């Protein structure tokens, strides 16, 4: 499996609906054989971008390249990709078998070849016993597998998925995450996966593209996006609970935080905070017990924040001194929301430092 090479390149793509921009000058490059996840809140333009790649919609401006070639105006079927829809888009009047080989049939693949590929794929997806059923006779999870089988049997190198797991229950979703990732690895697929669920993004992605309001906020590995959010938006969107953001005045002058007047924000994850001997004094507001740990809500100089303590430790007193891991802190410009990478400590993890966020 060869990875690293750019397979899909999005170059300054915008998509306007009337005068509102669903995508606003987006540029990103997705690598071959990688599992790329488009992550962002509902309505941020993820599906729009995916549909542009698929050719189901046309961009207002900009270019999309697949395998180096500009695919502008190229029909979806000529782009050598498959797609799994959120609604599965199974043909209700066809059996599982007919649904899976539908594409091969309309492309005129010989029957013997169709059946050979079907055997392999059906076995791989655990659908061999269900081939004679209609979609309405399947559970949600089984329908999902049929949709996946239809994509896999096409043997096309790129697979686009739009929130494929969102209609499944939590347990099945967790199983399917593992399975999807395994299939992608085994077949060396280039997957572009749309979701608003950060757990899906974190667990499956080689690379996460964080989107917000039609723009790309950050492109990076799950570790990079979590540990070094490029913007205030990413800091607040990734992580449950999200990263705490403090005005710099509260911490000014300590641990390399520039003394300031509130023009900067200090970002700290709940697990990077702890009870210290000395430090700014915080006021306890509430404790949430989660089994493995406790989420402590507190307030520091008018800013509410959450810290995560192991459940084995005693709950904090009503007032306590706040400590933090300075090498994990993020510094943001309060006005632009951008990360101030110049203040980063040496990388805490072995991951490569990469703050490419391609919206300027």
């Amino acid at each position, binding site marked *: 499996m060869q990875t690293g090479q750019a397979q899909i390149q999005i170059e300054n793509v915008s998509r306007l609906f009337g005068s509102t921009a669903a995508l606003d000058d987006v540029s990103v490059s997705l690598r071959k054989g990688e599992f790329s996840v488009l992550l962002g809140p509902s309505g941020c333009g993820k599906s729009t971008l995916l549909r542009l790649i*698929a050719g*189901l919609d046309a961009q207002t401006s900009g270019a999309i390249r697949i395998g180096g070639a500009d695919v502008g105006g190229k*029909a*979806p*079927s*000529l782009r050598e*990709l*498959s*797609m799994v*829809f959120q*609604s599965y*888009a199974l*043909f*209700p*009047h066809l059996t599982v078998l007919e649904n899976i080989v*539908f*594409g091969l049939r*309309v*492309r005129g693949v010989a029957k013997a070849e169709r059946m050979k590929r079907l055997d392999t794929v059906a076995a791989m997806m655990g659908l061999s016993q269900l081939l004679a059923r209609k979609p*309405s006779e399947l559970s949600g999870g089984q329908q999902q597998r049929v949709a996946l089988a*239809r994509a896999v049997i*096409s043997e096309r190198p790129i697979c686009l998925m739009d929130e494929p797991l969102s209609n499944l229950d939590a347990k099945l979703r967790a199983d399917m995450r593992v399975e999807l990732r395994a299939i992608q690895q085994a077949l060396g697929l280039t997957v572009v996966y749309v979701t608003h669920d950060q757990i899906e993004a974190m667990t499956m992605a080689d690379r996460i593209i964080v989107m917000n309001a039609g723009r790309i906020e950050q492109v990076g590995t799950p570790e990079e996006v979590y540990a070094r959010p490029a913007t205030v938006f990413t800091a607040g969107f990734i992580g449950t609970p999200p990263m705490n953001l403090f005005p710099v005045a509260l911490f000014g002058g300590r641990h390399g935080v520039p003394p300031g007047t509130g023009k900067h924000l200090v970002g700290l994850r709940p697990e990077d905070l702890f009870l210290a001997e000395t430090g700014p004094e915080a006021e306890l507001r509430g404790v949430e017990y989660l089994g493995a740990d406790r989420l402590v809500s507190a307030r520091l100089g008018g800013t509410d924040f959450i810290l995560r303590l192991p459940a084995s430790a005693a709950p904090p007193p009503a007032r306590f001194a706040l400590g933090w891991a300075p090498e994990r802190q993020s510094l943001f410009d309060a006005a632009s929301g951008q990360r101030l990478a110049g203040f980063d400590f040496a990388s805490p993890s072995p991951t490569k430092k990469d703050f490419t966020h391609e919206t300027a």
Partner: protein
Amino acid sequence: MNRRTWIHAWLMLLPAFVFLIAFTHLPAVTTLIDSFWTTGKGRRAAVFTGLGNYRKMLEDPIFIKAMVNSAVYAAITIPASILLSLAMALLVHRSFRGVSLMRMAFFTPTVLPLIAVANIWLFFYAPGFGLIDQIRLVVGLPSANYVGQPDTALYAVAAVTIWKEAGFFMIFFLAALQTIPQSLREAAAIEGCGRWTFFRLVTLPLIMPTTLFVSVNAVINAFRLVDHVFVMTKGGPDSATMLLLYYIFETGFRFWDTAYAAALTVVLIAILSVVGIGQFFLADRRVHYK
């Protein structure tokens, strides 16, 4: 259930029951009984003739003409109105400028009374100054009297039915097309499925229940709708547009041979039942119900 509840239940059902029996079931049964008797006239009372009225039909040239006409009329109007309505539905299913205007135009004939429609078409067909003749004259063809000629009158009447019915059936097809999710079309597009292939493999099977429903209605209407015959031809010229139902009307209410009319009615109902039931059984295997 106790007695009181039963009595209440029957009391509730009573009004509907009375009307149904008085205006549907009793007449049907009486019609069937009457068809075995002769028509009573003045002092001569009705006498039982058994299948006499039915035997009479076989020797009645106008009845035979009416049967042939009805068959031809049904064979033309049913497929033509269904195909036309499906074509119109496919046309206005997409969105483009003026699509609502187009939908409304297609639907307008449906809301007009058939009597009014017939009068409009009489003007279209009018020899000399009618719309069709004016076009014929422009392209240098001689004037033609479509409604007045025995060899064209039936087709002229059939055209009105098609024009009237297609818009109505279009609504059902349009509703059926709208229920096909857009994502099916997109999934097929990614697989490289062309428009015609998609129509054949997906659209057509999915709208099959609607097609069945529409075709049953088309069959019933082919025998039921004769208003325009009254206005345009009165069964003529020379019985060229004599349809079964119109013949029943003439026999029963112009010649007052009510017993013979009753027998003709039984024939009509028998035809409709056989066709209707047959359609359901035949089509059932090919219909996809969700």
